[in-house]
């Protein structure tokens, strides 16, 4: 934990002490830790000299930030319009059922976290599911197990 703090301290100091640094700092923190922890909120608030509630208020406004630890692999089901009309919702529900998690949560074994995303911009290949950095196109419910088996 100590090292993370020292490293994060370095990141903090690379940004000017102004409110404009808040979102980039939250993004850096999440890129490093995978989520926004209570400690991160405290540290950023102290550094920028603003209240913790303001940091959390901003962080919780934007969909990019998560407040629970992510799993080893991240599953994002696209629910853009093109994916919706091609059955994206059914895919999300199947993941929820198979993994026994709700969007935004992580499985008990910390292997997968499940997320809904508004649009990945691959609408011509709908419906799409993103696992880590791979986008799987033209997915249907019977392909889900096969996709997950590639991410152990």
């Amino acid at each position: 934990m100590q090292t993370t703090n020292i490293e994060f301290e370095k990141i903090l100091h690379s940004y000017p002490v102004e409110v404009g640094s808040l979102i980039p700092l939250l993004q850096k923190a999440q890129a490093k830790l995978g989520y926004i922890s209570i400690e991160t909120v405290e540290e950023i608030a102290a550094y920028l000299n603003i209240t913790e509630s303001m940091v959390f208020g901003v962080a919780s406004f934007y969909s990019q930030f998560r407040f629970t630890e992510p799993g080893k692999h991240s599953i994002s089901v696209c629910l853009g319009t093109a994916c919706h009309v091609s059955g994206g919702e059914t895919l999300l529900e199947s993941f929820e059922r198979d993994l026994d998690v709700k969007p935004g949560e992580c499985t008990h074994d910390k292997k997968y976290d499940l997320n809904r995303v508004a649009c990945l911009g691959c609408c011509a290949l709908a419906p799409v599911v993103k696992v880590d950095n791979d986008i799987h196109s033209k997915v249907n419910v019977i392909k889900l197990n096969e996709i997950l088996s590639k991410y152990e």
Partner: protein
Amino acid sequence: MNNFPKLQKKSKAEWDSLVHSKEPVIHLGMASCGKAAGADKVKTVVLNTLKQNKIKAKVVEVGCIGTCYLEPIMDITAHGNPRLSFGNVDEKWAEIILRKYLIEKEHNRNKVLGHFGTIPFNGVPSFYEQPMLKDQVRIVTKNCGIIDPSDIKQYIANEGYVGLSKALEMKPGEIIELIKNAGLRGRGGAGFPTGIKWRTCHDTKSGEKYLICNADEGDPGAFMNRLLIESDPHALLEGMVIAAYAIGVTEAIIYIRAEYPLAIVRLNNAIEQMKEYNLIGNNILGSKFSLHLKLKEGAGAFVCGEETSLIHSIEGKRGMPRTRPPFPAVSGLYGKPTVINNVETLGTVAHIVRNGADWYKQFGVDGNFGTKTFSLVGKIRRSGLIEVPLGTTLRKIIFDIGGGTQKEFKAVQTGGPSGGCIPKELLDTPVTYETLAKVGSIMGSGGLIVMDSDTCIVDLAKYFLDFIQKESCGKCTPCRVGTRHMFEILEKICNGQAEPDYLDKLESLANLVKTTSLCGLGQTAGNPVLTTLRYFRPEYIEHVDGYYCPALVCRSLIEYEVIKGRCTGCQRCVSVCPTGAISGPRSEPHNLDTNKCIKCRACYEICRFDAIAGNAIVITSGKEA
């Protein structure tokens, strides 16, 4: 010192040597969409095939040419022939096509899409003669899929930065007049004249001014900006430098979605190259003009498409809008005059400066000059990104360019969650800002989502309202409460729990939210509901009165059923059913217990996917059941 002419000469020489390369050149479409279709794997196969056959060749990654339904796309230039494009090249085909063409000099006639040469070639049509392309006018997207987006010299060799070079010799006021005369209107959706926006900001006295490019493409179903930035980042950047010079800005910001990682990489790389050639920074191309540019990653909030919200977000606050005036062009970022332009708007600027206002005005119709890009998606045969002159009819876009739908065409949705559904009776509507508003929709940023008889209009309205109520920032009551309430009404209609007066309630609520909300998000939130009620009221009534969903989508109103006569008893559905709702011994028709069935669609899909199963599982709704 201005080194541009020298750089131009060098770039053109390099481009010529690539076009007339002795070694074969292989171009691979590697934008996010190409990668999603498997372009990374194809690249591995290409590299291996070249290695195994000891062929020396250049492999170049390009962006996306817009024909997404043909991904992955591979182009080959060899044997002194023009560049040939091949479509739907999976791993297996990549090897076959490469061997055939590079070793046996035979191009596979089933996979070849067209050539990029200027003269006819061996029975192969020009790439631009394909049905999807022949009615397009490609200005903003002209380099997409053609040049390597990571190499500034390829952009320069194709008339890149000529516009900037020319602009720096003009007076700022002259450029603003030029853009005004060309009639360029904001491509983010609202269609405000770009020249007037620039003029206002230019004329406001202030020591500091800002230019922001809004690349926070938040409309679900739209990817025009992603594709342009991934395929030709300099098109945007050149436009930004020109705009900044015209307005008198020395600091510019690109606000881009964090969900577009590849676009961010491309932009950062492109900006570094601009620095190297003095196209950004101090004294650009030896002039007195300096500009500094940085990226801000948006953290995901649809409302940040609204100008004042976007400004708050950059300032580090919650992205909530404020009342206007003052307009950002007078008081924007940190209280300073600020111009916010969309990616496509800025991407058009350099072309206008280079070719003049009259040239631009030859495209489009009066008051709606130029071209507009659209992402043509949904239940359409040829999906992808297109660019057409404004004033083109929806029918031409959907049927001539897009090839129509497999099943019966039902509606087209324009303008994303703020737009509306346009029925087939209005397909001859020309696409302009005004005509789309007249039919109850909006131009929006360019998403065109095509729907066929398998799409439920009520479910779609519910989908948009669900999106909007989640994305409502919560500042004003009509939007915060009204959108939520509209969503709940729609949910009840889809669940078969509606009461007879629900449709009237829904309509009056939609109008109320539309007229009383603070910002564009709320003011357009009613559009999906109002247009669908206007054009598809019978379908709503079928849901409310008959518990019938004609598209067989609304889950509470449908049942799954096994047609005994068709069922071969293959047990594939039994194996995929997550709740054990289907049972039956092998080789005998199966039983489906509707009490256990959660309507997950797994059995339906497998029954259609597997040839031995025989399409035995069907979905029925109210009227038929």
